[in-house]
């Protein structure tokens, strides 16, 4: 029998077991109750980069919020790595504290007294924000705010990193630069990633595994392994060929 909204710590560090039997948004006002997710069962290996893809509004973000423990109102069970599993979440909007500087935003996610200056400076350098630590987020471009959000996500060295379309509303070169940055950060420090996007090319370029969702009251329709080596991921033609294979595009 399904347990209600349970989120537990399992044995393997960084691995995920996701079981969402049913997720319903309750009726509110004139809007009737709406079932958004059904029969979802995903096991994610530690250290893999899983991309969940599907059209807008199919419930991808809802699923990610359930995995993150922000939403407990579902039938099923989510098991995350070990008892001390650290989770990072990079949201669709950067969600930086506008009244704290970039440096303070990153330092705040570290445990008190653990905010090492050199470590934060190094992270700022890695994401290309060297010299911007003392700036307030709203004075930066969206692309730079997203870099700061990436830095905040990686600084805690999370066992599981959840990412919800973190590169939307950017122009293509900026988004591409950030994808390459993400690949670099992930190669340097592999962690289990669950990445959500509706952009097929982005899914293929980043993921080691692609899970497709579709329609309303969605479930996982397709589960594919991406056959690309790290060097092939920045090659547009290779990515396009793999995208055609996985998504049966002609």
């Amino acid at each position, binding site marked *: 029998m399904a347990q209600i909204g349970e989120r537990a710590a399992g044995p393997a560090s960084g691995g995920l077991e996701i079981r969402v039997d049913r997720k319903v948004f309750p009726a509110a006002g004139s809007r009737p109750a709406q079932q958004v997710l059904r029969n979802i069962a995903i096991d994610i290996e530690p250290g893999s980069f899983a991309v969940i893809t599907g059209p807008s509004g199919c419930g991808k973000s809802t699923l990610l919020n359930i995995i993150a423990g922000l939403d407990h109102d579902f039938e099923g069970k989510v098991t995350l790595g070990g008892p001390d599993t650290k989770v990072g979440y990079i*949201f669709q909007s950067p969600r930086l*504290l506008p*009244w704290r500087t970039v440096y303070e935003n990153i330092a705040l996610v570290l445990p008190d007294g653990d905010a090492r200056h050199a470590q934060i400076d190094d992270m700022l350098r890695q994401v290309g924000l060297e010299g911007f630590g003392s700036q307030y987020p*709203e004075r930066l471009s969206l692309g730079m705010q997203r870099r700061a959000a990436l830095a905040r996500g990686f600084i805690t060295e999370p066992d599981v990193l959840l990412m919800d379309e973190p590169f939307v509303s950017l122009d293509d070169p900026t988004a591409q630069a950030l994808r390459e940055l993400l690949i670099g950060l992930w190669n340097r420090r592999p962690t289990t990633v669950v990445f959500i996007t509706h952009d097929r090319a982005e899914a293929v370029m980043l993921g080691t595994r692609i899970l497709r969702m579709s329609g309303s009251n969605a479930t996982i329709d397709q589960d594919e392994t991406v056959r690309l080596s790290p060097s092939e991921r920045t090659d547009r033609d290779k990515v396009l060929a793999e995208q055609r294979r996985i998504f049966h595009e002609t």
Partner: protein
Amino acid sequence: MQRLNPTPRASVDEPWQTRVAWGLGSLMGFLLFWEVLALLIQHRHLPPPTVVFSAMVREAESGELGYHIAMTLFRVAVAFVFAMLIGSAIGIVMGRNGRIDQAFDSWLILFLNLPALVIIILCYVWFGRTEVAAIIAVAVNKLPNVAVTVREGARALSRDLAEMAHVYRFGPWKTLRHVTLPQLAPFFLASARTGLSLVWKIVLVVELLGRSDGVGFQLGTYFQMFDVSMILAYALAFILVVQVIEFAVLQPIAARVNKWRR
């Protein structure tokens, strides 16, 4: 013909010297207008500013002015702090909890519309003409305003940032200090600024009706003597003090709270 370049609006981007010069110039203009008016009317119930200032200086030299202003300021400060603390707490609770908001909304409206004079009279009747009664009366007058303003802020707290703080395990103290309070700061500041001017006006009434010191008490005394110079001297002196608080305390705090804005 259409004007393409209207007179620029005075803005905070101007150098402070320009702003101060305009402020002083405007003030001088008013004093000049008053002086001329008093000269034309020639009545002892409209003394010119020069006479008022000499009355102010005399009262200051005798130590009376300083003493009564200090007493009034003390009452303003205590009542202000209580009203801000309790009003903010009520506002936050009502803003975060819909049920409590529903249950007590009409109470708030009642207190918001209760005339200041009624609260003052009731406090003196119930608690006697004591210092405590005076301060309670002032605080209760201001409190509903603070609660309503802060409630708006608490209703608008960002869920996005709360989720971020939860995922990154901020804990209650870090969340309060870095996520919640900065969002409420503009609302605290707004109620502090409107509060200061409201509170000192009510304190004068409280002093007039039931205290034997303070600016309000002095105004009552000089009213009985029809000494308009002295009444104006006290009023102007206190306006000056309130302005100093505004410039020296509230504005620097506002600048600090808003420095992250674009």
